[in-house]
């Protein structure tokens, strides 16, 4: 008995050890493989010395959705070979990680340990970025940008100079911000069939909107004899906020342009002021509480997140929803067998159209202070930004690599995975940025052109023509007022000292007060005491710090 037990135990251990060593072996053979590919790459290099070669070291993100074919790897693939051939750039992989979070963490550790940073890397966390600049390990690129950036890139950045605010310290630029698309936020989606049935026009002002909502709620637009429809879908779970917190189904269009809740905007005195404190917001909250009382809003709005709140519109129970143009693909779908369409937002409480925009920049390039190859970088950047400029002559106009993310069939690009030999590969993940680098409002232009009914001509227009028609229609609508109405959060620096300490407390107080006002649990006058309390509990200090930053970056 004893002996048998012993034998079993040893077998168990043997199995465990084998499994462990199997894991160890497989990782070992991986490194060997890598070493081999590196060697191969080196032997290849010997052949082509016509061009001056440069090496750019990178940290790479290789996620589980990052597929390879033809025996390629992140070090050696169709994109790296292209970069090598075209610009003589060797991408050297310092390390790879599996997720975006791990990427940031890895960089944080390298910074803390004062170890070698990759030559070029991207970050999207202002607090961490601030630490990188403070450490003195990243390069001031002000001169390099002037010297090497291509004309169209210079022109772009000159057109939106405030984008530099995210990387400016003492008038110098310690990184290269990349632009967001600014092409989706936001339009009003409305039930055209309900408007027609009730004999109403699309709302142009808040008063119109009230009339429409009243009819949508009390006029039985779905004709089932029950008062079971709502006027406007809203998600208030993350407070009264705009796209920065509530990415769709928010209420910010109601407040107009003077102030957007939670956004910092420049006041008449040239100083930044906090949106949630402004009188127009109080007036907006009063409106929302009236609407809640009259049943225009969903009684559960306070408990619903974005997708939950959008459901009522998708299910045909709600008449109006405010959100980005891409709602046409999600959460909207083919099963919505009713007539709805995108329209311009009505003018807000201050008589002007306005809504909170997505930030101009979310991701920034940073460069190690020892990096010398800025010229090569900017050449490469200009090439991979071709699609972002929607340049028809870009070699990437159809896609990143033929046979990978598209194939040419009868002279036309096809993106269908079944037709691509070996399957569809997301080559943009092989680029230094790992994604398309957007430029403001370019996507909107292309989409709007399609939405106006023009036949697609450029490769981009062809590509986008596969998108739902309502998306393009929404883009055409948005284009008519985007410039006039988009309100940007002008504080784009790292959280200030008092924000770190008190920010959460203030935000919680704000969300709680605003929702209680909307639900009628507190009178609108609670807004005034909130403003006083906000200022005295650290808000004044935050305002000072924010303006200190604002003055510093605008020097």
């Amino acid at each position, binding site marked *: 008995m004893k002996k048998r037990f012993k034998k079993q135990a040893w077998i168990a251990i043997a199995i465990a050890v084998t499994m462990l060593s199997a894991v160890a072996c497989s990782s070992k053979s991986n490194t060997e493989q890598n070493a081999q590919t590196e060697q191969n790459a080196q032997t290849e290099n010997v052949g082509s010395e016509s061009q001056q070669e440069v090496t750019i070291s990178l940290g790479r993100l290789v996620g589980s959705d990052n597929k390879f074919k033809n025996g390629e790897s992140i070090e050696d693939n169709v994109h790296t070979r292209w970069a090598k051939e075209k610009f003589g750039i060797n991408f050297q992989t310092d390390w790879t990680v599996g997720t975006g979070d791990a990427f940031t963490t890895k960089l944080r550790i390298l910074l803390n340990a004062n170890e070698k940073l990759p030559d070029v890397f991207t970050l999207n966390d202002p607090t961490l970025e601030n*630490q990188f600049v403070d450490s003195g390990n990243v390069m001031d690129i002000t001169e390099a940008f002037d010297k090497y950036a291509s004309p169209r890139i210079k022109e772009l950045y000159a057109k939106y100079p405030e984008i530099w605010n995210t990387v400016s310290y003492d008038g110098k630029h310690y990184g290269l911000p990349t632009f967001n698309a600014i092409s989706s936020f936001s339009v009003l989606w409305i039930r055209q069939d309900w408007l027609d049935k009730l004999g109403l026009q699309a709302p142009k002002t808040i008063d119109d909107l009230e009339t429409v909502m009243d009819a949508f709620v009390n006029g039985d637009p779905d004709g089932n004899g029950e008062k079971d429809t709502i006027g406007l879908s809203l998600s208030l779970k993350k407070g009264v906020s705009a796209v920065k917190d509530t990415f769709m189904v928010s209420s910010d269009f109601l407040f107009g342009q003077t102030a957007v809740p939670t956004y910092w905007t420049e006041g008449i005195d040239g100083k930044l002021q906090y949106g949630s404190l402004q009188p127009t917001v109080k007036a907006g909250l009063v409106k929302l509480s009236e609407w809640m009382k009259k049943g225009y809003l*969903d009684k559960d709005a306070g408990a619903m997140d974005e997708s939950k709140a959008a459901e009522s519109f998708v299910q045909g129970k709600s008449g109006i929803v405010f959100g980005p143009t891409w709602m046409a693909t999600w959460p909207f779908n083919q099963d919505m067998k009713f007539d709805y369409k995108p329209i311009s937002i009505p003018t807000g409480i201050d008589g002007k159209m306005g809504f909170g925009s997505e930030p101009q920049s979310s991701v920034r390039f940073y460069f190690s202070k020892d990096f010398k190859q800025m010229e090569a970088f900017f050449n490469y950047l200009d090439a991979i930004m071709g699609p972002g400029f929607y340049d028809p002559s870009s070699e990437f106009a159809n896609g990143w690599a033929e046979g990978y993310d598209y194939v040419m069939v009868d002279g036309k690009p096809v993106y269908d995975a079944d037709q691509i030999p070996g399957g569809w590969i997301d080559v943009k993940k092989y680029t230094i940025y790992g994604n398309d680098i957007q430029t403001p409002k370019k996507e909107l232009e292309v989409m709007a052109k399609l939405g106006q009914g023009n036949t697609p001509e450029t490769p981009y227009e062809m590509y986008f023509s596969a998108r739902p028609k309502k998306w393009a229609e929404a883009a055409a609508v948005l284009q008519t007022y985007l410039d006039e109405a988009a309100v940007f959060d002008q504080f784009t620096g790292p959280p200030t000292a008092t924000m770190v300490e008190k920010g959460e407390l203030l935000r919680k107080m704000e*969300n709680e007060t605003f929702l209680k006002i909307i639900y009628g649990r507190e009178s609108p006058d609670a807004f005034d005491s909130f403003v006083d309390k906000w200022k005295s509990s650290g808000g004044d200090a935050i305002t000072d710090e924010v303006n200190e930053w604002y003055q510093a970056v605008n020097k």
Partner: protein
Amino acid sequence: MIEWKKSRMMVSRELPLHLLILPSVICLLVFNYTPMVGLVMAFQDFKPRLGFLHSPWVGFKHIHYMFTYPDSIQVIWNTFLIASLKIAANTVVPIVFALLLNEVRMLVFKRFVQTLVYLPHFLSWVILGGILTDILGNKGIVNHLLSGLGVEPIFFLGDGTWFRITVVISDVWKEFGFSTIIYLAALTGVNMSLYEAAEMDGAGRLKQTFHITLPALVPVILVVGTLALGNILNGGFDQIFNLYNPLVYREGDIIDTFVYRVGLMSGSFSFATAVGLFKSAVSFILIVVAYRLSYRFGNYRIF
């Protein structure tokens, strides 16, 4: 001589077992004990760039700040209240349910019910959050039934008191089936001859339950109860985070959601660590006390 031989035999017999447990011990040391070094952050002004080796020491600043932070007391109280209610309900309900199920004689039915009630345990709160928002909504099924009884619709997730009740009940609904299994397992271990003897003495089913079944369960209840006490400051992050909203911050915000917002969203790592440390300390004290008490009064050693 014989002693030595015996101990050598012991070693050779137990060595494989110790080797077997070694990987787990190593994992425990690496993943559970080593990170505790990070607790020093609670006494520093932690700057990620400096790391905890170089960040300046500030003593009890963050602990002090925690108790003077305007919301802290409210948040700690919420956590304590919600967690205690959950512990109480999650102890009583499974016991009662196990006792009832134990009386069921039809084996197929018993197995079926047992499986059915423990299935919700495997659902994530992210999914349940969405489902509950629907079920408990203004036009949801619960309010529909209530309106049939002539009750005004209740905003379960937007009214403080109702929110706490909802949180506790939904947690019990999700978890009681799983705990029931433990008690049912303990019940199978009860000596059948005790029941036969009791029957001979003329005890009915109720008497048998109170005098045989329940006493047999006491050790298990003590173990489960003691371990649960360690959770007295765990209100259930997943659940609250998916259900709460600004309307119920005052009654529903718990330590974990608070730490999440302060620590991760606003980036004050030291403060968040201090709060976490406080939580762990309270849990530790409670477990030790419960352990002593159950040894003293239940005469039962848990570990």
